[in-house]
């Protein structure tokens, strides 16, 4: 089976989820592009979009239509050539409409797993639950195509473990997109010890075609991305405890750490906002998977457990808007900070009034995340900023320095433990998967 043959019959499990919908989009666009190649005219491309929720599948269809339209408008130059043989398609608008139709025709939304039993490729992006994943894979192994390849989007579960439990004999690889898949440039590729070479080759080819940067990870729970993120968030939560012990209130501590981890660390959002974005439940799942599999390190947060037990979840509403978590949101922007006791949110404005003074004055050389990304020589500006931060000796400088140092330590440990091959891979992953302005392994702190 060559590359296009492999992609003739594809399934995406968890297709209507956050990750699944993006994976369906990228894969369907790639399949539509293949179908337009004259060499593939005899082939029929089908993508079974499987999810347990029929309502969510409806949402998937409108998301796909909207996104396929945008993609078509962007590549109209190439599409005119691809549809040159179609005399009936004359205007750009004719061609764009046809392409969207062709993409939609490829996608077959379904709630039946059995529809995927002819598929030769299965992307899996169902919930992060090892037992669920093993059950799905076992069923596919038992009833599906004898040579089916599984590309799991798991954030944390070791691939060789899934392989062993579902008896896939190496026909599985960790093909880990970042959220949202259509936007984030990164794919973290994790092969189990048994993963077959053909899957690795295909992954490289597919990632290239859909224009993703690949960073390889060892087959360790959490891989590189969550290996860093989970330890980073545990540090933030521990810092909140430390500041509370020093006499600040909990909401003040969360406000300050969130602000410093965004503005002083020059990141796209603060750490507590990121936890909310990913979802406390997802973080809990990933932590548990890692904690169960990585000895000698406590990867667990009692606070996250407590908040989830009280119904604080974060994550997104079905329409994509942000649900409240550590922070409260108005139009996607943090507007309040949660008190875990009363579950009330203290307005950010009133916290700013007291906390910004405590944090101390910001150096004039502070560079915004946007400016850092846009600048060609941002490392100089960032180095200059941190030199000034050190001089100020403010509370913010102290939190930032501890934070930056810890992030660097986490990065180095990932390399030392063999999770990442080298410093560059860690940095590249955080740059492309988390949109950081600089890699965690640096000499700024």
């Amino acid at each position, binding site marked *: 089976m060559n590359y296009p043959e492999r992609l003739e019959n594809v399934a995406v499990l968890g297709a209507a989820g956050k990750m699944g919908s993006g994976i369906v989009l990228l894969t369907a666009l790639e399949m539509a592009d293949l179908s337009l190649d004259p060499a593939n005219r005899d082939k029929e491309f089908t993508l079974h979009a499987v999810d347990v929720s029929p309502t969510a599948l409806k949402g998937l269809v409108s998301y796909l239509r909207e996104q396929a339209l945008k993609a078509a*408008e962007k590549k*109209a*130059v*190439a*599409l*005119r050539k691809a549809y*040159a043989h179609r*005399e009936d398609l*004359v*205007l*750009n*608008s004719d061609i*764009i409409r046809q392409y969207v139709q062709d993409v939609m025709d490829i996608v077959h939304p379904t709630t039946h797993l059995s529809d995927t039993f002819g598929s030769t490729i299965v992307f899996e992006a169902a919930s992060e639950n090892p037992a669920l994943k093993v059950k799905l894979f076992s069923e596919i192994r038992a009833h599906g195509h004898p040579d089916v390849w599984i590309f799991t989007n798991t954030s944390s579960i070791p691939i060789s473990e899934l392989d062993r439990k579902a008896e896939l004999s190496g026909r599985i690889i960790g093909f880990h997109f970042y959220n949202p898949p259509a936007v984030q440039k990164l794919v973290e590729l994790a092969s189990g010890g048994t993963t077959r070479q053909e899957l690795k080759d295909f992954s490289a080819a597919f990632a290239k075609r859909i224009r993703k940067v690949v960073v390889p990870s060892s087959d360790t729970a959490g891989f590189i991305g969550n290996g860093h993120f989970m330890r980073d968030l545990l540090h933030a939560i521990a810092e909140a405890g430390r500041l509370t012990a020093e006499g600040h209130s909990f909401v003040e501590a969360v406000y300050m750490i969130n602000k410093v981890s965004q503005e002083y660390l020059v990141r796209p959002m603060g750490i507590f906002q990121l936890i909310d974005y990913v979802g406390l439940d997802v973080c809990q799942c990933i932590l548990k998977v890692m904690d169960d599999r990585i000895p000698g390190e406590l990867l667990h947060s009692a606070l996250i457990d407590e908040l989830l037990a009280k119904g604080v979840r974060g994550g997104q509403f079905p329409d994509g808007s942000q649900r409240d978590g550590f922070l409260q949101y108005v139009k996607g922007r943090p507007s309040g900070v949660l008190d875990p006791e009363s579950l009330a949110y203290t307005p950010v404005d009133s916290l700013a009034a007291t906390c910004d003074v405590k944090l101390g004055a910001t150096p004039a050389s502070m560079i915004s995340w946007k400016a850092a990304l846009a600048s060609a020589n941002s490392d100089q500006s960032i180095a200059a900023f941190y030199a000034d931060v050190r001089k100020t000796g403010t509370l913010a400088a102290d939190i930032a320095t501890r934070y930056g140092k810890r992030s660097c330590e986490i990065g180095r440990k990932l390399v030392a433990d063999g999770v990442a091959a080298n410093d560059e891979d860690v940095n590249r992953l955080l740059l492309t998967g988390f949109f950081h302005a600089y890699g965690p392994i640096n000499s700024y702190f």
Partner: protein
Amino acid sequence: MNPLRRKVYMAAGSTTVSLGTGRKEFHPKKPRPGLEEHIREAGQGVLAQIGGAANVDEGVIGNFMAARFNHQGHLGALIPSIDDGLLWKPCHRVEGACASGGLALLAGIRSVLAETSEVTLALGTEVQNSVKAIYGADILSGAGWFRGERKHGHAHFFPSVFSDRAGHYFEQFGRDRTRNAFARWYRNAIENARLCPTAQEFHNTTADLEALALREPNPHTFVDHLNVFDCSKVSDGASAIAIVSEDGLSRIGVSKQDAVEVVGWAQLEADLTRPPEDPTRLETTRRTVARALEVAGIGIGDLATVECHDCFTMSGLLSVEAIGLAAHGEGPDYICAGETARGGSVPFNTCGGLVGWGHPTGATGVRQAISLWQQLTGKAENWQVEIPANRPYGLQVNMGGNDKTVVAIVYKRGG
């Protein structure tokens, strides 16, 4: 045949800004003026300078594709919406692709010559930001031969037409020197536009314009031989001017000093279904300009300034040659030597031209006339250039499609 049996003047020009990307007040997702508002603003600007609508005998408006950009035909009947004083007066709309504005001027000139009007309000308009550029390209491709050219044309139809011309020109006369001229043309356009508050590029702050303009073209996302800086942008706007006889001037209370006189004009048409014989030349433009200069009884050595149709840097370059200021193949040197810049021997497009001021297609011909009126009567404020007494003429060239409809008009100050 006497093309000027009577004296014809233009005065009291008024234009909206050229609205589109680059203007600070433009936001693609926010509501903005439509055809009606633009037409009213430009039209009322003229009426305020000519003693009101009662002094107007008739109206004419140039527009290319409002029927598709805005689902609005019948633009002649929007003219009375400018002012009640225009009700029950003859009005009509004319169309000749991007030369629609120029054709509106000619309709006004002819009517004054025919003595059927002493004062004609001539307008031009286009509102193009109503659709995304990729669909706008479909609409604008109507200036080409739809049945014969569209299917095999490019997604970006007109940029590609002029990119192909550029490809031929590169081959014959050298790519680097030609692209250097494009970059210089772009720089001149933006620098001029920065002096003129109504220009689309008025707010442009790019430091190194030529370096920006020299970015390599990307055939995957755009066309083979041009980049986006070689192209005029998508623009909304309307422009208006009064076209009057001598009697008309006294009726509206404008002195000859404050008007320009039309001393020569020509309008030629090429066959839409026939490709240009030599893609490195604008033959229709060449013929039309030659005829207009002949009517005016002047040579190109008499020109003080030119408004040419630089919908692309490439058409700017070819216009310089077609007008006759540089020989075939020598336009790049002429431009790179700064001859067309505001300090050069014949400054072109002194408030930015189509690349810098903007190109609301149906309005462009009228806007060019306004610019020359301002320039020749000393009303050009920050963008005024010197008009030498011994060569006091201004030339306007307005081109529709791929050099198919061309209007050329020669002006000098009225008194």
